[in-house]
């Protein structure tokens, strides 16, 4: 006699569910944060995260240990990029040219007392590749190596994107400030 569908559900899938809940579910805040920054709106972020969790659960059999946060964020990030392509948001983004010099500009702007809302807007205006690097590094605390794994680029590219993203943010915030004073 074979086990019924119901018994199978409890024996096998329950076990997978328990592992998934233990390893992956705790990272749903990080998942939402990344999706919200990449889609730039609440509604789409929720849709993308739901979609990403469905895929994560489906792929979970292929997860053989390692960092579950970086693993989940890779899926979320890919779901976001698919969403952006479908919504043609990516096509409108500028080409950031990863092959430019990796050195930050020597005319560095040193910002003081940053206004939180101005900072939020400045990050939102960054190209997606810069924005995701900044969010993963500053808000999610991932290492260069983990960011490289999540975004599918070498560590050197991660570093240069962070350098250039911060340079842009410093200039944007510096200019806003200068504009405000003028």
């Amino acid at each position: 006699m074979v086990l019924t569908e119901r018994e199978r559900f409890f024996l096998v899938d329950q076990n997978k569910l328990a592992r998934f809940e233990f390893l992956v579910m705790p990272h749903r805040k990080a998942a939402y944060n990344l999706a919200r920054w990449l889609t730039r709106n609440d509604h789409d972020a929720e849709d993308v995260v739901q979609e990403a969790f469905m895929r994560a659960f489906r792929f979970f059999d292929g997860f053989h240990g390692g960092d579950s946060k970086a693993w989940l964020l890779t899926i979320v990030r890919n779901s976001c990029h698919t969403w952006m392509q479908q919504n043609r948001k990516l096509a409108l983004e500028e080409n950031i040219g990863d092959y430019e010099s990796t050195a930050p500009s020597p005319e560095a702007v040193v910002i003081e007392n940053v206004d939180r809302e101005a900072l939020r807007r400045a990050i939102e205006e960054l190209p997606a590749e810069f924005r995701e690097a900044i969010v993963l590094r500053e808000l999610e605390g991932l290492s260069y190596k983990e960011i490289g794994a999540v975004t599918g680029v070498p560590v050197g590219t991660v570093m240069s994107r962070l350098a250039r993203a911060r340079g842009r943010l410093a200039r944007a915030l510096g200019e806003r400030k200068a504009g405000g004073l003028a």
Partner: protein
Amino acid sequence: MTCEDARGLLTAYVDEELDVAHSLEVEKHLETCEACARIVESQEKVRSAIQASGLSYEPPASLDARIESTIRRSAKPAGRPPMSWPWLAAAAAILLALVLLGRLPMSRVPASDTLIAQEVLDSHLRSMMPGHLTDVESSDQHTVKPWFDGKIDFAPSVVDFAADGFPLAGGRKDSISGRTVAALVYRRNKHLINVYIWPSSAPNSAPTSAALQGYNLLHWTQGGFAWWMSSDLNAEELAQLGTHLRESASK
């Protein structure tokens, strides 16, 4: 360190991603280079501004419920649609009648064995990965049986059933629930069958079968050994090999 060398490392320095030696070199350079020091200061200011900003988005309360329902839905076994309760009740009644009439010779795997069943299946799936199936690859029982000497502390019965359509393919040492077990591999046409054998103090028991994740399992105890079989072969033919194994082990 020249300015040019330092420039490429400044961001990694800010992020503390440099090893100690490079970090010290950059630090030394910064003492004498105002331009580089300014870049580091600029990057650090942006970095700490974002980190201190509390700009992370909090998920809305509705998200948890959405994730939960999505996962529960995908966790349900695919394929057949879930049976409704009246049908389940009817099926259970028919099953009970069959059992009472003695028409179902095989009992189901007891709860205590379900964990072992899962481990047997895990091991079976592992063995299907390239290079994991056999440690000793031979259809000759006189090659496979002595191979286990000294590798495991019991002597499993190893018999080739090629004449019955189940040729021996080899054997390997494996582990189930922390026990060292003997695994024999048989073929049936294109299907592979794993037979796991380990010493057990349980009394002899009739074979019980189970289907897990699309694989068929068969289990019994006999002559001081626990036997488990796993395969993607259909349950009927798997039971045939089971019968051959039990008959030859009782000789």
